[in-house]
């Protein structure tokens, strides 16, 4: 796993209003507010990623309960990628990015501090949100991961990509 606090380009730089006609569309976000994890599709990466994300969430002021929820959701999202998007094949890329566009208005209609996490894979493009709906039965296997994401994060969006899937999760303080 390669990870660290890195700078990058993001449309969520709070210094730049998203809809400003004069500002450039992208500006570097503060490195202290962005974590990028370049991972491989192997289950040994789950705990590394979870702990790195939890540490990042802590550094952004999220309390212990929220840290645990965020870590669990990243774990579940990655496990879904490994099991379903990559069908258990190891060594495939997973990119997890966490960032905190903290300023009000940095995200359209976003009133306050928020942690944005994206999980990008280059797998089979299966959209978990489009699986046939069935009533959740705790005694049947499967489904708990998605229940966690939807129950613990404020927003969960799967965006199909030409070559895989992008999951975006928002967690507000």
């Amino acid at each position: 796993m390669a990870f660290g606090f890195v700078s990058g380009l993001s449309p969520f730089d709070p210094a730049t209003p998203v809809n400003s006609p004069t500002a450039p569309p992208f500006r570097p976000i503060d490195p202290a507010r962005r974590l990028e994890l370049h991972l491989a599709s192997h289950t040994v990466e789950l705990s590394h990623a979870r702990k790195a994300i939890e540490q990042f969430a802590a550094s952004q002021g999220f309390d212990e309960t929220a840290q645990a929820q965020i870590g669990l959701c990243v774990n579940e999202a990655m496990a879904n990628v490994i099991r379903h998007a990559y069908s258990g094949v190891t060594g495939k890329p997973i990119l997890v990015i966490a960032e905190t566009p903290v300023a009000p208005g940095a995200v359209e209609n976003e009133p306050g501090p928020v942690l944005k996490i994206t999980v990008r894979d280059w797998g089979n493009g299966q959209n978990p949100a489009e699986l046939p709906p069935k009533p959740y039965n705790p005694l049947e296997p499967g489904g708990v991961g998605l229940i966690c994401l939807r129950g613990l994060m404020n927003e969960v969006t799967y965006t199909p990509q030409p070559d895989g899937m992008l999951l975006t999760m928002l967690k507000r303080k």
Partner: protein
Amino acid sequence: MNPSIPLTSGTDLVPSARQEGTAVIAAIRGEIDLHNSPELRTAMLDVLLRGDPKKLILNLDQVPYMDSSAVAVLVEALQKLRRVGGKVFLTNLQPRVKGLLEIARLDTIFIVVKDEAEALSK
């Protein structure tokens, strides 16, 4: 009082297991996710096969974290016990594990008790 018969699990994830009458009491240890939950599943199925319990008591005192794949192992054990009219008790839940069971709506399906003694008395 029933004699306590040790059961070996062959994995550090289940550092101790013993049989007391028709009950099997096992401790689980470690952070459990998709990486090691298959190992936990093998150990649990082995303990269930050899102990053939009507009551399974799992002490989760040393489990600070588990994900949905670990929950699936617990549910599989529960299903096996239910088929023979048995019950599964979970003791000493840590906050993260408790939170996961709650959101998965499993906190009312397993019997959650304070400790092993309470589970044995039920």
